[in-house]
């Protein structure tokens, strides 16, 4: 009688275990992960070893502070005119290069309160066309269109991203060096330069190695 009870109990436990086993979906986060708003300078839970938003924020903030702290900018009686030159990407990561200069420009424009002036050289074709339309009288003008008002650059701001990669069975390591320069347009002297460096390492699951 006693052994019968044990048998039935055992069978019940096994069936229950089987049933619960089948009930599981076996998927981690089956309902997905809700959208998580993060700060741009935060390291998120989706990361790689490449150039990411937190790097962009850290690097461009550092560069903006460097430019603003420059005597030639901070104590200039007339705000210097700066032209942005494309950033050179020599890393192994394809990036939107303009985003670095765009953030530096926006940061300086919002924080420097007129201490520097950026010239929209990337819009020069459209600006020339507009001026030509005014000069030929095809559109109206509030000032004399024949007067040269396009400003020349006092400085060029440019940068370069360079990288070093090591990949081995132990994982991948990526080092990226960010350098930015302010170049005097008249003398070609590099009046300011700063750098930032970020190194990241990661290792894939053994299933991918």
């Amino acid at each position, binding site marked *: 009688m006693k052994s019968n009870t044990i048998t039935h109990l055992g069978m019940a436990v096994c*069936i229950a275990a089987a049933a619960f086993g089948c009930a599981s979906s076996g998927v981690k986060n089956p309902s997905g992960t809700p959208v998580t708003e993060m700060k741009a300078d935060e390291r998120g839970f989706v990361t790689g070893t490449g150039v990411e938003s937190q790097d962009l924020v850290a690097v461009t903030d550092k560069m903006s502070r460097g430019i603003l702290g420059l005597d030639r900018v901070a104590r200039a009686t007339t705000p210097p005119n700066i032209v942005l030159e494309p950033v050179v990407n*020599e890393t192994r990561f394809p990036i939107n290069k303009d985003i670095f200069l765009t953030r530096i420009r926006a940061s300086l424009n919002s924080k420097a309160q007129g201490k520097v002036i950026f010239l929209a050289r990337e819009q020069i074709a459209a600006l020339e066309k507009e001026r030509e339309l005014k000069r030929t009288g095809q559109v109206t003008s509030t000032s004399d269109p024949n007067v040269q008002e396009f400003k020349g650059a006092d400085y060029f701001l440019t940068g370069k991203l360079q990288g070093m990669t090591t990949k081995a069975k132990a994982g991948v390591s990526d080092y990226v060096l960010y350098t930015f320069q302010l170049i005097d347009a008249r003398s070609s002297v590099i009046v300011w330069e700063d750098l930032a460096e970020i190194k990241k390492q990661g290792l894939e699951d*053994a*299933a*991918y190695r």
Partner: protein
Amino acid sequence: MTQSSALHRAATATCVALLLSLSSVFWAGCSSSPKKEKPKLTGDPLVDGENFIQNGPERDRVLWQYRTALTALRQGKLDLSKQYLDEALARIQGIYGKDADAKKSRSYFREEARKTFIGEPYERAMAWFYRGILYWIDGQPDNARACFRSGQVMDSDTEDKTYSGDYVLFDYLDGYVTSRLGGDGSDAVRRAETNSHLWKPPGFAPKANLLVFVDYGPPPTKFATGEYREQLRFAGGKSQIVSATVKIGEASGKAVPYDDLFFQASTRGGRVMDHVLANKAVFKKSTDIAGTVGIISGAAMATSNNRDVQTAGLAVMGVGVVTKIFSAATTPEADVRTWDNLPLYLSFVAFEVTPGEHTLTVDFLDGQGRILAGQSKTATINVPEGTPEKVIYVSDKSITPQTL
């Protein structure tokens, strides 16, 4: 103790053991995601690809993104190709650290093919290569170079360092872009020349304004071998097409193979996963043998006249059955999912042509240098004045004619 109660206890033990083993199989087998019906193939690779990306298994998404991106590139649908490659590359760049599916695929009772597909290193390298071509087509040679460098990195952890990072074209193009951007690309070109085992890459054409990427031949395929199909191997390496000629007006250039994907796939050496699969195979075999021994010896004991021996025999049989079930549930099979529309050979030709509209023809040649009938491709191209240079991609699987 009566005979019947002894038998009853033995039967109970066997029954419980069987149920336990069955429930463990349920745990292993039923814990997968609910079965989702696989999309049906229509025969149109672009339609099928998009369908599988949207509705197919999540673990195969990158595989279908690779395939569909290449199909789109060959049909001149560059935006679609970029979209899928970007999605796939974003996925494969974020695989560091813990991955639940990858972890499961290492367990005894899950197949390797249950992990999220990101491809073997030669497949990942090719995803970077094609994205590089697309960046160059868009006039971003430095981003193209970044992709070629990343492609080379994918191949840099081989077991035998002789074959580490040895794609000829990746280094050559790295040097080519560096030179065109005013840098010194000579180191990269030297590496390309050292690694070339088919053809040496040509010297730079500094004034070239038309760059043609050509690829051809059937891709390497994967198969599983070994007693339990636990060893991943590659097949292929043979192609009817062994070179190509690119003609534009009076000019022509030989698109000889600089890289061989079968060579790249098969010279990487062992994977860490191979050891995991080998362990699974050993477990499968040893549990199978132990199970057989248990069942046979248990059966022999059960025929004994001694009740206690009979009881023990039935218990041993039960354990044998359980062990056999564990063996059957072990899955050491290697993952053979393959990016199956890759080429075998990669090539590149540079031309200096007058700006304007041209007709470009690519003839594919066999081993005797004969043009293979019905395989030629033509494209109407418009070479712009000055920079950026015109970059085009033609494959033996491209649609023809095209306007590029």
